[in-house]
């Protein structure tokens, strides 16, 4: 289409002005993509510091288990996979099997031993090392390595039991069949999850041993799904839930409502940032575009005189702006996304300079970490196209009402 060709050629007419406009647009767009990616990075940090430590992004359990855990609400992992089909979603990093139950732990010589109730969490050390950050929370000794009769205690619980790594820990409880379960364990390490209350009751063991001790066979109490993108947990959970009635699929949102409540604000903040960036950009580009527009009045008059309809003439100016915005937008999101990818794979740690922030049971690591995302890329791109049209809307409107005779009189 000739109008498009003219529009495109016009961009190179006043190269410097077009370049300046484009630099402004590219700058704003790439910075915006980067900023939104950075916001998401903070959000991911916030979410994953809470979820990936232990909980995972999605919990699969028998209905009601999450609210009222019971040793008897167990299932064979295969039963779930049979129902759902394995690997239904491509952004799944993996699954962790968990068994959770209660037991009395005691330590020290019999005459003055300490006894404490505790929540026993049976974990698969191989899966956990790949997915959760539990092992990173060990502050003394080591995590479960797969040796016999290992136990890891929360810091508070270890303190109450007056136990150090290497000490014997006695476990007493009732198995899933009501039978008495007892075992002598060796304290492998002490863990600090950052939640004092939890650390005062948490004990971690190898899931195989817990299953044996508590007569659970191969059954587990929950499967924890770890996702690449924590923000997708809700949709994924919804999709999974649609395919099963015998399991309850719980995204992290309902387990960490405080963090979930940030999501709405976050999106608002992103929109607000976008509005500010682009409002500034609109003011700059409108000016240069309008100047260029005024200079070309005579030319518009000629085009009208030789028979170009006013609608097509308006389109011309819209196209010009749209093309500048489109090209700048493409370059902008490319740069912004490249920066986001770079910082996604190689985050820069800033904790030497700043203290970490604590929020809602999680803490925000101070680091330059960005998450490239479809929406945080496309939103700025689409918005800059809209901006391109809006900036040209006034000139285009003027062209609709242009009187050729008057335009021609302009030298």
């Amino acid at each position, binding site marked *: 289409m000739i109008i498009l060709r003219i529009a495109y050629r016009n961009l190179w007419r006043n190269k410097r002005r077009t370049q300046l406009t484009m630099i402004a647009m590219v700058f704003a767009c790439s910075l915006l993509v980067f900023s939104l990616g950075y916001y998401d990075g903070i959000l991911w940090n916030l979410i994953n510091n809470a979820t990936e430590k232990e909980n995972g992004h999605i919990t699969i359990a028998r209905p009601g288990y999450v609210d009222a855990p019971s040793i*008897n609400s167990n299932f064979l992992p295969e039963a779930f996979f049979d129902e759902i089909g394995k690997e239904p979603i491509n952004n799944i990093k993996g699954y962790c099997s968990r068994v959770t139950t209660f037991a*009395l732990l*005691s330590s020290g010589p*019999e005459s003055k*031993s*300490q*006894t*404490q*109730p505790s929540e026993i969490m049976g974990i698969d050390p191989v899966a956990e090392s790949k997915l959760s950050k539990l092992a990173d929370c060990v502050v003394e000794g080591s995590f479960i390595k797969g040796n016999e009769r290992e136990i890891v205690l929360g810091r508070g619980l270890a303190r109450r039991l007056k136990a150090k790594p290497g000490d014997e820990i*006695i476990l*007493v409880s*009732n198995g*899933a*069949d*009501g*039978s*008495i379960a*007892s*075992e*002598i364990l060796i304290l492998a390490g002490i863990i600090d999850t950052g939640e004092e209350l939890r650390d005062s009751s948490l004990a971690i063991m190898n899931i195989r041993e817990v299953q044996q001790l508590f007569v659970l066979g191969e059954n587990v109490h929950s499967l924890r799904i770890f996702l690449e993108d924590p923000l997708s947990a809700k949709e994924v959970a919804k999709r999974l839930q649609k395919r099963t009635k015998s399991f309850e699929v719980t995204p992290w949102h309902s387990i960490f409502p405080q963090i979930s409540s940030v999501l709405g604000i976050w999106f608002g903040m992103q929109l607000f940032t976008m509005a500010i960036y682009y409002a500034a950009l609109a003011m700059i580009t409108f000016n240069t575009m309008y100047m260029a527009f005024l200079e070309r009045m005579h030319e518009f008059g000629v085009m009208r005189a030789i028979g170009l309809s006013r609608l097509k003439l308006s389109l011309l100016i819209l196209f010009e702006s749209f093309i500048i915005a489109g090209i700048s937008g493409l370059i902008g999101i490319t740069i912004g996304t490249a920066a986001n990818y770079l910082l996604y794979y190689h985050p820069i740690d800033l904790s030497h300079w700043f203290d970490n922030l604590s929020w809602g049971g999680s803490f925000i690591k101070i680091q330059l970490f960005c998450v490239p995302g479809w929406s945080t890329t496309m939103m700025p791109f689409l918005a800059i196209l809209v901006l391109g049209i809006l900036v040209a809307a006034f000139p285009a409107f003027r062209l609709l009402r242009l009187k050729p005779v008057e335009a021609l009189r302009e030298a």
Partner: protein
Amino acid sequence: MYKFLLAFFIVVTSTTGAAEPSQVQAVSSLTQELSAKELVTKIETQYQGKTSHGRTKMLIKTRHWQRTLEMESWSEGRDKFLTRILAPSKERGTCTLKVDDNIWNYLPRIDRMIKIPSSLMGESWMGSHLTNDDLVKENKIDQLYKLAIIASSTERITIEGIPLPQAAVVWGKIIYVVDPQKLIPIYIDYFDEEGVKVRTINFSEPALIDQRWIPKVMRIIPLEKPEEFTEMQYIEIEFDVSLSDGLFSLKSLRNR
């Protein structure tokens, strides 16, 4: 669970061996004039043999499983009590010792003893519907509650018990129904602080042993899970047996 168990043992021990027939008669005729507290004390103390030795079956039924334990037990007075699991074989040798307000468990599989700290007295005993607390407090109703007769007939007397301020009791109220003729409990209802009935213990199958009535069966029903219960039944019991020295000691737990 422990509470009921102990209560049951005490009831069993006292009815079977402690009292003379003439005493029974005397007590029966006296009940009308007795105060509630005297009545309960009478029932409870007359069940006290000096010592006892017996065998019991405990049936635990929950939504998910059901199991039967067979136990041998010894008691001395109100405050000393020892029980040892005979069956199933997996748990054979598991012991519970109560001396005064303290409870120890012995686990033969790992050859270790564990003292139940006061904070865990509310935990289930051996997976049953009894708690450790029940073992300690069940036989002290007359000391822990302010008792009052709220209804009475020749067949049954209904006593209401409100915990005394200084008593660390988990219940808000109990209703203790006794048979004044046989001098045995019929049932006890337990209410929480809000006045909601949360547990019932039924006593049944009274048998005349050594000229005393004793209920052979005791069933504990937690009302929030009415399909569940723990039932205890005695198989045999003897009273005023001579018990070896140091039976109620930590050492004997391991040596048994």
